[in-house]
Protein backbone atom coordinates (compact mmCIF):
# COMPACT_ATOMS: atom_id res chain seq x y z
CA UNK A 1 0.00 0.00 0.00
CA UNK A 2 1.20 3.48 -0.79
CA UNK A 3 2.20 5.56 2.16
CA UNK A 4 0.41 8.86 1.67
CA UNK A 5 1.63 10.62 4.78
CA UNK A 6 1.18 14.00 3.07
CA UNK A 7 -2.55 13.44 2.98
CA UNK A 8 -2.99 14.32 6.63
CA UNK A 9 -2.92 18.04 7.19
CA UNK A 10 -1.16 18.67 10.45
CA UNK A 11 -1.60 21.97 12.22
CA UNK A 12 -0.10 23.68 15.22
CA UNK A 13 -2.39 26.28 16.73
CA UNK A 14 -3.50 24.94 20.08
CA UNK A 15 -0.17 24.40 21.81
CA UNK A 16 1.59 27.45 20.35
CA UNK A 17 1.72 31.15 21.21
CA UNK A 18 0.09 31.26 24.61
CA UNK A 19 2.28 34.16 25.73
CA UNK A 20 0.27 36.92 24.12
CA UNK A 21 -2.89 36.11 26.11
CA UNK A 22 -2.92 39.44 27.94
CA UNK A 23 -2.89 41.36 24.68
CA UNK A 24 -5.58 39.09 23.17
CA UNK A 25 -7.81 39.52 26.23
CA UNK A 26 -7.39 43.29 26.47
CA UNK A 27 -8.02 43.71 22.76
CA UNK A 28 -11.11 41.50 22.61
CA UNK A 29 -12.98 42.83 25.62
CA UNK A 30 -12.97 46.20 23.87
CA UNK A 31 -14.88 44.70 20.95
CA UNK A 32 -18.66 44.63 21.05
CA UNK A 33 -20.61 41.53 22.00
CA UNK A 34 -22.22 41.40 18.59
CA UNK A 35 -18.92 41.59 16.73
CA UNK A 36 -17.44 38.79 18.82
CA UNK A 37 -20.48 36.57 18.37
CA UNK A 38 -20.45 37.17 14.63
CA UNK A 39 -16.78 36.30 14.47
CA UNK A 40 -17.40 33.02 16.28
CA UNK A 41 -20.45 32.19 14.16
CA UNK A 42 -18.66 32.89 10.90
CA UNK A 43 -15.74 30.66 11.95
CA UNK A 44 -18.25 27.78 12.11
CA UNK A 45 -16.53 26.42 15.21
CA UNK A 46 -18.47 23.46 16.59
CA UNK A 47 -18.18 22.00 20.08
CA UNK A 48 -15.07 19.85 20.36
CA UNK A 49 -16.43 17.69 23.15
CA UNK A 50 -18.08 15.50 20.56
CA UNK A 51 -21.64 16.75 20.27
CA UNK A 52 -20.66 19.40 17.75
CA UNK A 53 -23.12 22.17 18.63
CA UNK A 54 -22.18 25.50 16.96
CA UNK A 55 -20.26 27.43 19.61
CA UNK A 56 -21.20 30.89 18.35
CA UNK A 57 -24.88 30.05 18.56
CA UNK A 58 -24.43 28.79 22.12
CA UNK A 59 -22.87 32.09 23.15
CA UNK A 60 -25.52 34.06 21.29
CA UNK A 61 -28.43 32.27 22.99
CA UNK A 62 -26.90 32.81 26.38
CA UNK A 63 -26.15 36.46 25.61
CA UNK A 64 -29.79 36.99 24.68
CA UNK A 65 -31.12 35.29 27.81
CA UNK A 66 -32.28 37.80 30.41
CA UNK A 67 -30.71 37.37 33.80
CA UNK A 68 -28.61 39.32 36.27
CA UNK A 69 -26.54 36.24 36.97
CA UNK A 70 -25.00 34.05 34.27
CA UNK A 71 -22.18 31.54 34.27
CA UNK A 72 -19.38 30.31 32.02
CA UNK A 73 -18.30 26.75 32.60
CA UNK A 74 -15.34 24.93 31.12
CA UNK A 75 -16.09 21.23 30.90
CA UNK A 76 -12.88 19.43 31.85
CA UNK A 77 -14.55 16.17 32.84
CA UNK A 78 -12.66 14.35 30.12
CA UNK A 79 -13.66 10.72 30.62
CA UNK A 80 -14.40 9.16 27.26
CA UNK A 81 -12.18 6.10 26.83
CA UNK A 82 -9.33 6.99 24.51
CA UNK A 83 -9.47 10.75 25.08
CA UNK A 84 -6.68 12.65 26.79
CA UNK A 85 -6.31 15.96 24.93
CA UNK A 86 -8.05 18.30 27.40
CA UNK A 87 -5.59 17.43 30.13
CA UNK A 88 -2.75 18.39 27.79
CA UNK A 89 -4.39 21.74 26.98
CA UNK A 90 -4.91 22.56 30.66
CA UNK A 91 -1.32 21.51 31.44
CA UNK A 92 0.38 23.36 28.61
CA UNK A 93 -1.78 26.36 27.64
CA UNK A 94 -4.20 27.09 30.53
CA UNK A 95 -4.18 30.85 29.83
CA UNK A 96 -5.77 30.29 26.43
CA UNK A 97 -8.70 28.54 28.10
CA UNK A 98 -9.04 31.19 30.81
CA UNK A 99 -8.84 34.01 28.26
CA UNK A 100 -11.57 32.46 26.12
CA UNK A 101 -13.73 32.01 29.24
CA UNK A 102 -13.33 35.66 30.15
CA UNK A 103 -14.13 36.79 26.60
CA UNK A 104 -17.20 34.57 26.79
CA UNK A 105 -18.11 36.23 30.11
CA UNK A 106 -17.81 39.63 28.43
CA UNK A 107 -20.01 38.47 25.53
CA UNK A 108 -22.82 36.92 27.55
CA UNK A 109 -22.61 39.09 30.64
CA UNK A 110 -21.22 36.56 33.13
CA UNK A 111 -18.87 37.43 35.96
CA UNK A 112 -18.25 33.95 37.27
CA UNK A 113 -16.54 31.07 35.56
CA UNK A 114 -15.94 27.50 36.68
CA UNK A 115 -13.68 24.73 35.48
CA UNK A 116 -15.22 21.35 36.26
CA UNK A 117 -12.11 19.19 36.54
CA UNK A 118 -12.45 15.43 36.71
CA UNK A 119 -11.24 13.85 39.96
CA UNK A 120 -8.67 11.78 38.10
CA UNK A 121 -6.89 15.04 37.14
CA UNK A 122 -6.55 16.32 40.69
CA UNK A 123 -2.78 16.59 40.14
CA UNK A 124 -3.48 19.50 37.75
CA UNK A 125 -5.36 21.52 40.33
CA UNK A 126 -2.51 23.42 41.99
CA UNK A 127 -0.81 24.55 38.77
CA UNK A 128 -4.18 25.49 37.35
CA UNK A 129 -5.02 27.49 40.48
CA UNK A 130 -1.72 29.32 40.11
CA UNK A 131 -2.60 30.22 36.54
CA UNK A 132 -6.03 31.35 37.69
CA UNK A 133 -4.62 33.75 40.29
CA UNK A 134 -2.22 35.27 37.78
CA UNK A 135 -5.11 35.55 35.36
CA UNK A 136 -7.45 37.20 37.85
CA UNK A 137 -4.71 39.65 38.84
CA UNK A 138 -4.46 40.75 35.26
CA UNK A 139 -8.23 40.99 34.86
CA UNK A 140 -8.24 43.50 37.74
CA UNK A 141 -5.65 45.69 36.04
CA UNK A 142 -7.79 45.96 32.93
CA UNK A 143 -10.96 46.44 35.04
CA UNK A 144 -12.54 43.20 33.91
CA UNK A 145 -14.80 41.69 36.55
CA UNK A 146 -14.37 37.97 35.99
CA UNK A 147 -13.33 35.20 38.36
CA UNK A 148 -12.70 31.49 37.82
CA UNK A 149 -13.03 28.67 40.33
CA UNK A 150 -12.15 25.02 39.97
CA UNK A 151 -14.83 22.50 40.89
CA UNK A 152 -13.51 18.97 41.37
CA UNK A 153 -15.38 15.94 40.11
CA UNK A 154 -15.19 12.64 41.92
CA UNK A 155 -14.90 9.87 39.37
CA UNK A 156 -18.16 9.84 37.41
CA UNK A 157 -18.03 9.71 33.60
CA UNK A 158 -21.64 10.84 33.26
CA UNK A 159 -20.79 14.24 34.77
CA UNK A 160 -19.28 15.16 31.41
CA UNK A 161 -22.87 15.35 30.20
CA UNK A 162 -23.57 19.05 30.67
CA UNK A 163 -26.75 18.88 32.73
CA UNK A 164 -25.34 16.07 34.91
CA UNK A 165 -22.36 18.34 35.46
CA UNK A 166 -24.67 21.11 36.75
CA UNK A 167 -26.38 18.66 39.10
CA UNK A 168 -22.98 17.60 40.38
CA UNK A 169 -21.92 21.21 40.98
CA UNK A 170 -25.18 21.75 42.85
CA UNK A 171 -24.22 18.97 45.27
CA UNK A 172 -26.43 16.26 43.84
CA UNK A 173 -26.10 12.92 42.09
CA UNK A 174 -24.82 13.43 38.57
CA UNK A 175 -28.09 12.59 36.87
CA UNK A 176 -28.81 14.32 33.54
CA UNK A 177 -31.82 16.64 33.32
CA UNK A 178 -34.51 16.69 30.69
CA UNK A 179 -33.82 19.08 27.83
CA UNK A 180 -35.20 21.63 27.08
CA UNK A 181 -34.58 23.94 28.81
CA UNK A 182 -31.06 24.08 27.40
CA UNK A 183 -28.13 25.35 29.46
CA UNK A 184 -27.91 28.59 27.50
CA UNK A 185 -31.28 29.50 29.06
CA UNK A 186 -31.26 27.50 32.27
CA UNK A 187 -28.08 25.76 33.38
CA UNK A 188 -26.12 25.86 36.60
CA UNK A 189 -28.42 27.06 39.42
CA UNK A 190 -31.06 27.45 36.70
CA UNK A 191 -29.22 30.49 35.36
CA UNK A 192 -28.17 31.00 31.73
CA UNK A 193 -24.91 29.10 31.36
CA UNK A 194 -22.41 28.69 28.56
CA UNK A 195 -20.73 25.34 28.95
CA UNK A 196 -17.88 24.58 26.57
CA UNK A 197 -15.37 21.79 26.30
CA UNK A 198 -11.73 22.71 27.09
CA UNK A 199 -10.65 22.31 23.48
CA UNK A 200 -13.56 24.40 22.16
CA UNK A 201 -12.37 27.30 24.32
CA UNK A 202 -8.80 26.84 23.07
CA UNK A 203 -10.07 27.08 19.47
CA UNK A 204 -12.10 30.17 20.36
CA UNK A 205 -8.80 31.69 21.50
CA UNK A 206 -7.28 30.87 18.10
CA UNK A 207 -10.25 32.54 16.38
CA UNK A 208 -10.02 35.67 18.53
CA UNK A 209 -6.30 35.81 17.83
CA UNK A 210 -6.14 35.24 14.08
CA UNK A 211 -9.72 35.98 13.00
CA UNK A 212 -12.51 33.71 11.86
CA UNK A 213 -11.28 33.37 8.30
CA UNK A 214 -7.97 31.77 9.24
CA UNK A 215 -9.89 29.07 11.12
CA UNK A 216 -12.66 28.70 8.53
CA UNK A 217 -10.12 28.16 5.75
CA UNK A 218 -8.96 24.98 7.48
CA UNK A 219 -10.87 21.72 7.27
CA UNK A 220 -13.77 21.02 4.93
CA UNK A 221 -17.37 22.14 4.50
CA UNK A 222 -19.42 21.63 7.70
CA UNK A 223 -16.23 20.66 9.53
CA UNK A 224 -14.12 23.76 9.71
CA UNK A 225 -10.85 24.21 11.51
CA UNK A 226 -8.54 21.82 13.25
CA UNK A 227 -9.16 19.25 15.95
CA UNK A 228 -7.01 17.53 18.50
CA UNK A 229 -6.92 13.77 18.11
CA UNK A 230 -6.04 11.43 20.95
CA UNK A 231 -4.38 8.48 19.25
CA UNK A 232 -3.90 5.23 21.14
CA UNK A 233 -4.04 1.46 20.84
CA UNK A 234 -2.02 -0.48 18.27
CA UNK A 235 -0.01 2.38 16.83
CA UNK A 236 3.73 3.02 16.76
CA UNK A 237 3.12 6.67 17.67
CA UNK A 238 0.39 7.12 20.28
CA UNK A 239 -0.15 10.72 21.39
CA UNK A 240 -2.00 13.96 20.78
CA UNK A 241 -2.09 15.41 17.28
CA UNK A 242 -3.71 18.50 15.85
CA UNK A 243 -5.10 17.76 12.39
CA UNK A 244 -7.41 19.49 9.97
CA UNK A 245 -10.90 18.03 9.93
CA UNK A 246 -12.17 16.11 6.94
CA UNK A 247 -9.40 13.54 6.56
CA UNK A 248 -10.24 10.06 5.35
CA UNK A 249 -9.72 7.17 7.69
CA UNK A 250 -7.48 5.48 5.09
CA UNK A 251 -5.06 8.39 5.27
CA UNK A 252 -5.24 8.37 9.04
CA UNK A 253 -4.46 4.66 9.24
CA UNK A 254 -1.65 4.93 6.68
CA UNK A 255 -0.01 7.46 8.93
CA UNK A 256 -0.81 6.07 12.38
CA UNK A 257 -1.42 2.34 11.86
CA UNK A 258 1.10 -0.41 12.47
CA UNK A 259 0.52 -1.96 9.02
CA UNK A 260 -1.92 -4.48 10.44
CA UNK A 261 -4.89 -2.30 11.45
CA UNK A 262 -8.10 -4.28 11.57
CA UNK A 263 -10.44 -1.59 12.85
CA UNK A 264 -10.48 1.91 14.34
CA UNK A 265 -12.76 3.11 17.10
CA UNK A 266 -13.70 6.69 16.26
CA UNK A 267 -15.07 8.80 19.11
CA UNK A 268 -14.35 6.51 22.05
CA UNK A 269 -16.53 3.81 23.53
CA UNK A 270 -19.60 5.90 22.71
CA UNK A 271 -18.48 6.28 19.08
CA UNK A 272 -18.29 3.87 16.17
CA UNK A 273 -16.01 0.99 15.30
CA UNK A 274 -14.96 1.18 11.66
CA UNK A 275 -13.66 -2.04 10.08
CA UNK A 276 -10.86 -2.00 7.49
CA UNK A 277 -13.21 -2.41 4.54
CA UNK A 278 -14.87 0.91 5.42
CA UNK A 279 -11.73 3.02 5.96
CA UNK A 280 -11.82 4.54 2.46
CA UNK A 281 -15.42 5.73 2.67
CA UNK A 282 -15.11 7.14 6.17
CA UNK A 283 -14.17 10.75 6.73
CA UNK A 284 -13.57 12.37 10.07
CA UNK A 285 -15.76 15.40 10.60
CA UNK A 286 -19.18 16.48 11.74
CA UNK A 287 -21.25 15.85 8.67
CA UNK A 288 -20.80 12.10 8.34
CA UNK A 289 -22.53 9.95 10.87
CA UNK A 290 -19.22 9.08 12.42
CA UNK A 291 -18.35 11.72 14.97
CA UNK A 292 -21.40 13.90 15.36
CA UNK A 293 -23.42 11.46 17.37
CA UNK A 294 -21.03 10.49 20.13
CA UNK A 295 -21.68 12.76 23.01
CA UNK A 296 -19.15 13.21 25.77
CA UNK A 297 -15.86 13.83 23.94
CA UNK A 298 -14.47 14.04 20.47
CA UNK A 299 -11.21 13.06 18.88
CA UNK A 300 -10.60 9.65 20.38
CA UNK A 301 -8.98 7.36 17.81
CA UNK A 302 -8.20 3.86 19.03
CA UNK A 303 -6.51 1.47 16.63
CA UNK A 304 -6.87 -2.29 16.85
CA UNK A 305 -4.67 -4.71 14.91
CA UNK A 306 -5.45 -8.26 13.86
CA UNK A 307 -4.27 -9.72 17.18
CA UNK A 308 -7.22 -8.13 19.02
CA UNK A 309 -10.48 -9.87 19.76
CA UNK A 310 -13.41 -7.58 19.03
CA UNK A 311 -15.43 -9.57 21.56
CA UNK A 312 -13.01 -8.49 24.27
CA UNK A 313 -13.20 -4.91 23.07
CA UNK A 314 -17.00 -4.88 23.23
CA UNK A 315 -16.98 -6.66 26.59
CA UNK A 316 -14.68 -3.94 27.93
CA UNK A 317 -16.90 -1.11 26.61
CA UNK A 318 -20.08 -2.65 28.02
CA UNK A 319 -18.49 -3.15 31.40
CA UNK A 320 -17.57 0.53 31.26
CA UNK A 321 -21.11 1.61 30.37
CA UNK A 322 -22.85 -0.57 32.93
CA UNK A 323 -20.64 0.95 35.63
CA UNK A 324 -20.96 4.52 34.40
CA UNK A 325 -24.69 4.58 33.60
CA UNK A 326 -26.22 6.90 36.20
CA UNK A 327 -29.09 4.45 36.68
CA UNK A 328 -31.77 7.10 36.44
CA UNK A 329 -33.63 5.88 33.33
CA UNK A 330 -34.57 2.27 32.76
CA UNK A 331 -33.47 1.76 29.12
CA UNK A 332 -29.89 2.68 29.95
CA UNK A 333 -29.67 1.15 33.44
CA UNK A 334 -31.13 -2.21 32.45
CA UNK A 335 -30.00 -2.11 28.82
CA UNK A 336 -26.30 -1.75 29.61
CA UNK A 337 -26.53 -4.69 32.04
CA UNK A 338 -28.45 -6.90 29.64
CA UNK A 339 -26.20 -6.23 26.64
CA UNK A 340 -23.20 -7.13 28.76
CA UNK A 341 -24.79 -10.31 30.12
CA UNK A 342 -26.17 -11.06 26.65
CA UNK A 343 -22.89 -11.13 24.74
CA UNK A 344 -21.40 -13.37 27.43
CA UNK A 345 -24.33 -15.77 27.05
CA UNK A 346 -23.82 -15.92 23.27
CA UNK A 347 -20.09 -16.42 23.62
CA UNK A 348 -20.51 -19.25 26.11
CA UNK A 349 -23.14 -20.93 23.95
CA UNK A 350 -25.84 -20.51 26.58
CA UNK A 351 -27.80 -18.52 23.96
CA UNK A 352 -27.67 -19.20 20.25
CA UNK A 353 -26.37 -16.75 17.65
CA UNK A 354 -29.85 -15.42 16.83
CA UNK A 355 -29.92 -13.86 20.28
CA UNK A 356 -27.57 -11.21 18.87
CA UNK A 357 -30.53 -9.88 16.86
CA UNK A 358 -32.47 -9.39 20.06
CA UNK A 359 -29.54 -7.58 21.59
CA UNK A 360 -29.25 -5.33 18.54
CA UNK A 361 -32.94 -4.47 18.88
CA UNK A 362 -32.39 -3.72 22.55
CA UNK A 363 -29.52 -1.36 21.73
CA UNK A 364 -31.76 0.37 19.20
CA UNK A 365 -34.46 0.78 21.85
CA UNK A 366 -31.86 2.31 24.14
CA UNK A 367 -30.91 4.74 21.39
CA UNK A 368 -34.50 5.91 21.03
CA UNK A 369 -35.60 5.93 24.64
CA UNK A 370 -32.64 6.78 26.87
CA UNK A 371 -32.70 10.16 28.52
CA UNK A 372 -29.19 11.31 27.66
CA UNK A 373 -26.29 10.75 25.32
CA UNK A 374 -24.81 7.90 27.36
CA UNK A 375 -27.63 5.44 26.86
CA UNK A 376 -28.37 6.77 23.39
CA UNK A 377 -24.85 6.16 22.16
CA UNK A 378 -24.23 2.64 23.50
CA UNK A 379 -25.82 1.38 20.28
CA UNK A 380 -23.09 3.10 18.23
CA UNK A 381 -20.28 0.84 19.32
CA UNK A 382 -22.54 -2.12 20.03
CA UNK A 383 -24.09 -2.35 16.58
CA UNK A 384 -20.95 -1.40 14.67
CA UNK A 385 -18.97 -4.14 16.44
CA UNK A 386 -21.65 -6.84 16.39
CA UNK A 387 -22.57 -6.24 12.75
CA UNK A 388 -19.00 -6.12 11.47
CA UNK A 389 -17.47 -8.82 13.65
CA UNK A 390 -20.39 -11.15 14.19
CA UNK A 391 -18.35 -14.32 14.01
CA UNK A 392 -16.02 -13.06 16.73
CA UNK A 393 -19.03 -12.58 19.02
CA UNK A 394 -20.12 -16.20 18.55
CA UNK A 395 -16.98 -18.33 18.25
Amino acid sequence: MMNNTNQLKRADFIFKNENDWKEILAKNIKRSQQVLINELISSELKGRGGAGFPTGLKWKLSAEAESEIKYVICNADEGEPGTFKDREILSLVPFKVLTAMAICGHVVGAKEGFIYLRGEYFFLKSSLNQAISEFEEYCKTIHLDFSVKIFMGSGAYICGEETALFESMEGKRGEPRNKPPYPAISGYMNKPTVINNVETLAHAYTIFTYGAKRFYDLGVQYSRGTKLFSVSGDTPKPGIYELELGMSLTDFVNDFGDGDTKAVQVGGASGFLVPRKRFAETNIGYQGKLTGISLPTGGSMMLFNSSRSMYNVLDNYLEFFREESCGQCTPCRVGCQQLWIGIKAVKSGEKNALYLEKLLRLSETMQWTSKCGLGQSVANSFSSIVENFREEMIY
Partner: protein
Amino acid sequence: MDTSTTLIKNLADQYGRSRNNLLPILQSVVKQEKYLSELSMITIAKELDISASEVYGTATFYSFLEHQKMGRYIIRVCKTITCSMKGKNQILLAIQDMLKIDIGETTPDGTFSLLQTNCLGFCHKAPTMLINNDVYTELTPEKVREVLSGYLAKAKEGENDE
Protein backbone atom coordinates in the same frame (compact mmCIF):
# COMPACT_ATOMS: atom_id res chain seq x y z
CA MET B 1 -17.29 16.47 70.11
CA ASP B 2 -15.28 13.77 68.41
CA THR B 3 -12.70 14.67 65.77
CA SER B 4 -14.93 13.76 62.86
CA THR B 5 -17.69 16.11 64.00
CA THR B 6 -15.18 18.90 64.54
CA LEU B 7 -13.72 18.31 61.11
CA ILE B 8 -17.11 18.50 59.46
CA LYS B 9 -18.07 21.65 61.36
CA ASN B 10 -14.84 23.29 60.28
CA LEU B 11 -15.37 22.24 56.68
CA ALA B 12 -18.90 23.62 56.69
CA ASP B 13 -17.54 26.89 58.11
CA GLN B 14 -14.86 26.96 55.44
CA TYR B 15 -16.98 26.09 52.39
CA GLY B 16 -20.37 27.34 53.52
CA ARG B 17 -23.57 25.50 54.32
CA SER B 18 -25.39 25.62 51.01
CA ARG B 19 -26.09 22.46 49.04
CA ASN B 20 -23.55 23.51 46.36
CA ASN B 21 -20.79 22.87 48.84
CA LEU B 22 -21.76 19.28 49.52
CA LEU B 23 -19.33 17.70 47.07
CA PRO B 24 -16.26 19.66 48.23
CA ILE B 25 -17.15 18.79 51.85
CA LEU B 26 -17.56 15.10 51.04
CA GLN B 27 -14.25 15.15 49.14
CA SER B 28 -12.45 16.76 52.07
CA VAL B 29 -13.82 14.24 54.55
CA VAL B 30 -12.69 11.38 52.30
CA LYS B 31 -9.27 12.96 52.03
CA GLN B 32 -8.93 13.25 55.81
CA GLU B 33 -10.59 10.05 56.98
CA LYS B 34 -10.14 7.87 53.88
CA TYR B 35 -13.86 7.18 53.69
CA LEU B 36 -17.33 8.44 54.53
CA SER B 37 -18.74 6.74 57.59
CA GLU B 38 -22.47 6.70 58.23
CA LEU B 39 -21.82 9.03 61.13
CA SER B 40 -19.98 11.53 58.92
CA MET B 41 -22.80 11.51 56.42
CA ILE B 42 -25.38 12.14 59.15
CA THR B 43 -23.24 14.91 60.63
CA ILE B 44 -22.85 16.56 57.22
CA ALA B 45 -26.62 16.34 56.71
CA LYS B 46 -27.19 18.11 60.03
CA GLU B 47 -24.65 20.82 59.26
CA LEU B 48 -26.15 21.52 55.83
CA ASP B 49 -29.70 21.08 57.09
CA ILE B 50 -30.63 18.51 54.46
CA SER B 51 -31.83 14.96 54.88
CA ALA B 52 -29.24 12.26 55.51
CA SER B 53 -30.60 10.26 52.60
CA GLU B 54 -29.78 13.14 50.27
CA VAL B 55 -26.20 13.09 51.49
CA TYR B 56 -26.06 9.31 51.20
CA GLY B 57 -27.56 9.44 47.69
CA THR B 58 -24.97 11.92 46.52
CA ALA B 59 -22.06 10.29 48.29
CA THR B 60 -22.72 6.84 46.90
CA PHE B 61 -23.02 8.14 43.32
CA TYR B 62 -19.34 9.00 42.92
CA SER B 63 -16.73 6.29 42.61
CA PHE B 64 -14.03 8.36 44.32
CA LEU B 65 -16.13 8.92 47.44
CA GLU B 66 -15.44 5.72 49.31
CA HIS B 67 -17.78 4.53 52.01
CA GLN B 68 -15.54 1.78 53.24
CA LYS B 69 -12.40 2.53 55.19
CA MET B 70 -9.50 2.70 52.71
CA GLY B 71 -5.77 2.44 53.17
CA ARG B 72 -3.44 5.41 53.31
CA TYR B 73 -2.51 4.90 49.67
CA ILE B 74 -5.32 4.02 47.29
CA ILE B 75 -4.04 2.31 44.15
CA ARG B 76 -6.43 2.62 41.21
CA VAL B 77 -5.40 0.58 38.18
CA CYS B 78 -7.05 1.64 34.91
CA LYS B 79 -9.02 -1.22 33.38
CA THR B 80 -10.44 0.53 30.31
CA ILE B 81 -9.72 -0.70 26.81
CA THR B 82 -6.22 0.54 25.94
CA CYS B 83 -4.74 -0.17 29.37
CA SER B 84 -6.45 -3.53 29.30
CA MET B 85 -4.89 -4.28 25.88
CA LYS B 86 -1.45 -3.11 26.96
CA GLY B 87 -1.01 -5.41 29.94
CA LYS B 88 -3.21 -4.18 32.80
CA ASN B 89 -3.56 -7.74 34.11
CA GLN B 90 0.20 -8.19 34.53
CA ILE B 91 0.27 -4.95 36.47
CA LEU B 92 -2.53 -6.12 38.76
CA LEU B 93 -0.80 -9.46 39.32
CA ALA B 94 2.47 -7.73 40.21
CA ILE B 95 0.66 -5.56 42.78
CA GLN B 96 -1.36 -8.46 44.21
CA ASP B 97 1.78 -10.56 44.48
CA MET B 98 3.75 -7.84 46.22
CA LEU B 99 1.06 -6.60 48.62
CA LYS B 100 -0.80 -9.90 49.10
CA ILE B 101 -4.19 -8.32 48.63
CA ASP B 102 -6.94 -8.81 46.08
CA ILE B 103 -8.89 -6.16 44.21
CA GLY B 104 -11.10 -4.28 46.67
CA GLU B 105 -8.96 -5.18 49.65
CA THR B 106 -6.73 -3.22 52.01
CA THR B 107 -3.45 -4.41 53.49
CA PRO B 108 -3.84 -5.40 57.18
CA ASP B 109 -1.59 -2.53 58.25
CA GLY B 110 -3.87 -0.08 56.43
CA THR B 111 -1.16 1.18 54.07
CA PHE B 112 -2.53 0.21 50.66
CA SER B 113 -5.93 -0.41 49.08
CA LEU B 114 -6.18 -1.89 45.60
CA LEU B 115 -8.97 -0.89 43.21
CA GLN B 116 -9.63 -0.84 39.50
CA THR B 117 -10.96 2.28 37.83
CA ASN B 118 -12.25 3.49 34.47
CA CYS B 119 -10.26 5.46 31.90
CA LEU B 120 -7.64 7.68 33.55
CA GLY B 121 -6.99 9.66 30.38
CA PHE B 122 -3.46 8.43 29.65
CA CYS B 123 -4.28 5.86 26.95
CA HIS B 124 -1.22 6.88 24.93
CA LYS B 125 0.94 5.87 27.89
CA ALA B 126 -0.87 2.67 28.89
CA PRO B 127 -0.98 0.84 31.21
CA THR B 128 -1.54 3.37 33.96
CA MET B 129 -2.53 3.70 37.61
CA LEU B 130 -3.22 6.35 40.19
CA ILE B 131 -1.85 6.20 43.70
CA ASN B 132 -3.90 8.74 45.64
CA ASN B 133 -3.59 11.70 43.27
CA ASP B 134 -0.37 10.75 41.49
CA VAL B 135 -0.37 9.14 38.06
CA TYR B 136 2.06 6.43 36.97
CA THR B 137 2.22 5.62 33.28
CA GLU B 138 3.81 3.12 30.87
CA LEU B 139 3.90 0.59 33.66
CA THR B 140 5.70 -2.72 33.64
CA PRO B 141 5.70 -5.21 36.52
CA GLU B 142 9.26 -4.07 37.35
CA LYS B 143 8.29 -0.43 37.35
CA VAL B 144 5.27 -1.13 39.56
CA ARG B 145 7.42 -2.95 42.12
CA GLU B 146 9.82 -0.01 42.16
CA VAL B 147 7.00 2.52 42.65
CA LEU B 148 5.40 0.47 45.45
CA SER B 149 8.77 0.02 47.17
CA GLY B 150 9.04 3.79 47.27
CA TYR B 151 5.64 4.06 48.96
CA LEU B 152 6.48 1.23 51.38
CA ALA B 153 9.64 3.05 52.42
CA LYS B 154 7.67 6.27 52.87
CA ALA B 155 5.05 4.47 54.94
CA LYS B 156 7.76 2.96 57.16
CA GLU B 157 9.32 6.32 57.84
CA GLY B 158 5.85 7.55 58.71
CA GLU B 159 6.46 10.46 56.37
CA ASN B 160 3.51 12.74 56.05
CA ASP B 161 3.02 13.41 52.37
CA GLU B 162 -0.60 14.39 52.18
